[in-house]
């Protein structure tokens, strides 16, 4: 278990680097002159190339080299980050991903990508004059931080790299070496002065120090400056003064010096405080915390039955600790949703390119946190929704202008927390969903009987039906329905809900309501017949008593009046066919699935129960009225009600009853 596969480490690292590159490229698209971003993309490419070669991913390393070269030119100001170049590198990025996943993958379209990259670069160089390769002499003074040797920096190899650039004279500066008694042999006290004659630009020298530049002292000055660089002369005095910078390369350095301390500070606490842990270990830990919660509730039950004060106080202590542990565990598993949102920018970029539409993508609430596993499972449904919004929801620029809208379509992706749920919305300002067509299509497919009265919401829910999505023509009509049943299944698997609203001609909005965490919920423990069940507390609105009188009266109609509104109710005793007599004082638990309120008649309310959800096995896949099971304090198993499905099942049952009458 503890053995880590080095190539696995590389794969994880490369994923992150690729992501960083991608984000950078997309940022550049909006702001092509941001040199900070250019530098970060370049560094990520450089690291990817280096560690790729180190782990034996030769193909990846070689391929990345070309992209690095391209970005190096951008960095030096020899080329601009044109959309064409960014597009080419983005395309290359996908190839790099494939290479990172499979080191010996076929070169495939690699050549074609390189060609387009080269073209993009050549197109560039027409606009920017190539730097004249003139030999210059540089004086470089540098000193490394005292702990650099401990951190694995090898000054000798830095010097070797400098030598590789051209003719170099190296002098060691020994001023800082302390008395022998005070000398710490593991610290570096030497500084160096190198006089280097090279035809390489200044940035090439800086590149030598790329991995240590953040915490070292480096001075690079030109000796006997070439005529063209006269203005740079003040630099010979030492530190370059801002405002006196002329060449772009100098500007870069200046920029670096300003940026470096900032970055260093920002990075330092991160490196010290974050730990990378495989998700599977977190899952294991969560399982164990779950078991602990169950054991703890048994302990509570046992201790409640004794009069031993010592045992009771220990039990209380453990209860407190266990619930704190659970909370921290939940917290550890929370990750910001920005992880997920970031991916979609690329999707929109590609969609805009493929469809020829102009799309502005805005995300909001990226700091909203969700359980890690939930985030992973949300990726596919959101891709579907965003693709639908951009591809089918938004009109073409010409149509938009015709409809009196701005040419640029908008897709908003927002996340916010609402109680124990996170609401993620995908909003577009496209043409909206055509109700009548949805309806016609559903009738045609036999999903609803012609003439059925349906609320708007019910009509939109039809889109989510599996039978609906397979109809191919709907995509041409109103544009929705491809894979929507997949979205529905995944969201329901997460115990979430989907709400669709739309205004024709103005756009549509899909809300996904997702519970914060998958593993533990707060529930209300109830008894129906002899069975005990848990109703998720997030669904519960209130509890009222169903008097015998009301019960008898409601044989023909299952409604109660609750603050002047009618609430239909379902008798769980009948639905579960318990075959027992009702309790004299039955209770109604009013639950809501967001849109409608329904009462569930139970025999007894046993109380609040914090529940570790255990999924039901494949043997019970067909039973959808329960979302899982849990183990109670006495060791018996209670089922957790899936309120949405229960309401749907109740409606079906009623329909059957009505039909039979």
């Amino acid at each position: 278990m503890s053995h880590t596969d080095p190539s696995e480490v590389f794969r994880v690292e490369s994923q992150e680097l690729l992501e960083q590159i991608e984000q950078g490229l997309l940022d550049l698209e909006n702001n092509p002159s941001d040199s900070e971003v250019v530098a970060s993309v370049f560094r990520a490419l450089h690291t990817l190339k280096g560690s790729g070669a180190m782990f034996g991913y030769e193909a990846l390393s070689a391929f990345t080299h070309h992209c690095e070269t391209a970005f190096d030119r951008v960095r030096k100001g020899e080329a601009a980050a044109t959309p064409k170049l960014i597009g080419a590198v983005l395309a290359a990025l996908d190839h790099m991903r494939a290479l990172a996943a499979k080191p010996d993958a076929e070169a495939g379209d690699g050549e074609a990508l390189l060609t387009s990259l080269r073209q993009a670069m050549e197109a560039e160089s027409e606009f920017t004059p190539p730097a004249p390769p003139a030999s210059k002499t540089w004086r470089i003074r540098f000193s490394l931080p005292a702990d650099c040797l401990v951190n694995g920096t090898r000054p000798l190899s830095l010097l070797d790299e400098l030598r590789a650039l051209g003719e170099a004279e190296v002098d060691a500066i020994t001023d800082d070496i302390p008395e022998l008694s005070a000398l710490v042999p593991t610290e570096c006290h030497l500084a160096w002065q190198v006089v280097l004659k090279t035809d390489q630009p200044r940035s090439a020298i800086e590149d030598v120090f790329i991995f240590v530049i953040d915490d070292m002292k480096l001075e690079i000055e030109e000796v006997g400056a070439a005529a063209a660089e006269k203005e740079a002369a003040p630099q010979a005095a030492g530190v370059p003064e801002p405002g006196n910078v002329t060449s772009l390369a100098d500007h870069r350095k200046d920029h670096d010096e300003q940026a470096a301390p900032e970055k260093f500070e920002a990075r330092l606490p991160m490196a010290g405080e974050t730990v990378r842990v495989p998700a599977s270990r977190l899952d294991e830990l969560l399982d164990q915390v779950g078991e602990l919660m169950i054991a703890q509730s048994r302990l509570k039950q046992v201790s409640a039955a004794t009069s031993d004060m010592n045992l009771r106080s220990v039990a209380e202590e453990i209860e407190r600790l266990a619930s704190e542990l659970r909370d921290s565990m939940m917290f550890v598993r929370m990750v910001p949703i920005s992880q997920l949102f970031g991916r979609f920018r690329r999707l929109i970029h590609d969609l805009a390119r493929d469809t020829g539409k102009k799309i502005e993508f805005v995300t909001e609430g990226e700091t909203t946190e969700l359980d890690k596993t939930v985030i992973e499972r949300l990726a596919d449904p959101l891709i579907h929704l965003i693709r639908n919004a951009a591809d089918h929801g938004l009109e073409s620029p010409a149509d938009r202008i015709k409809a009196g809208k701005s040419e640029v379509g908008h897709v908003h992706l927002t996340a916010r927390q609402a109680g124990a749920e996170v609401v993620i919305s995908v909003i577009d300002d496209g043409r909206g969903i055509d109700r009548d067509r949805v309806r016609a299509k559903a009738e045609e497919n036999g999903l609803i009987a012609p003439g059925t009265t349906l609320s708007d919401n019910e009509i939109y829910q039809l889109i989510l039906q599996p039978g609906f999505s397979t109809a191919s023509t709907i995509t041409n009509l109103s544009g929705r329905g491809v894979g929507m049943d997949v979205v529905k299944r995944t969201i329901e698997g997460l115990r979430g809900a989907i709400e669709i609203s739309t205004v024709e001609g103005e756009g549509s909005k899909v809300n996904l309501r997702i519970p914060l965490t998958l593993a533990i919920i707060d529930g209300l423990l109830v008894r129906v017949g002899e069975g005990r069940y848990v109703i998720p507390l997030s669904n519960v609105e209130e509890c009222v008593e169903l008097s015998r009188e009301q019960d008898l009266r409601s044989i023909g109609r299952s409604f109660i009046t609750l603050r002047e509104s009618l609430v239909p109710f379902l008798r769980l005793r009948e639905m579960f066919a318990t075959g027992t007599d009702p309790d004299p004082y039955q209770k109604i638990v009013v639950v809501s699935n967001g849109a409608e309120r329904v009462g569930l008649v139970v025999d007894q309310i046993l109380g609040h129960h914090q529940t570790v959800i255990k999924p039901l096995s494949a043997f019970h896949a067909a039973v959808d009225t329960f979302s899982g099971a849990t183990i109670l304090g006495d060791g018996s198993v209670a089922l957790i009600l899936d309120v949405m499905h229960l309401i749907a099942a109740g409606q079906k049952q009623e329909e059957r009853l009505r039909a039979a009458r």
Partner: protein
Amino acid sequence: MTTEQASGWDDSGHLQVLTFDMQGETFAIEAGMVREILDRIPETVVPGAPEMVGGLVNFRGRVVPLADLHKAFGFDRTGITMDSRIIVIEFDMHGEATLVGLKADKVHEVTVLEKAATETAPRVGMRWRQDFIRCLAKRSGDFIVVPDLERIFTVGCGADAASFTQH
């Protein structure tokens, strides 16, 4: 329908099995699948579940479905006696290792069946569905039924669960 999982015979034609009783008939399942044998413990009924897997039990903190093979062979549901046990097996359901409990009226022993002494189930003269039986093993004048669990579970949990108890 029979799979690799069901062909557990070793090279010399032996199969180690656990034998148990249901309604006086002796059945055998591969010993390698068996995880544990439990005394009967309280069971939670799952309303609306297929008849064959109508319950759940708590097996060491895990929620495990409880399958009742009695139904598959047309036996009546029997009451719980001193000898009643739950055999917890690990079963490959749709490619996922799943724990499932089997209700047994009585558990006998772990023994070895010989392939030479087995026969496929005859097409006639049997009250049981032929496809539910992997083979019959002759043994001291009587025979032991080796059920095809995969087939039984597939049919018993599938959409056509209603046709399950036909005879």
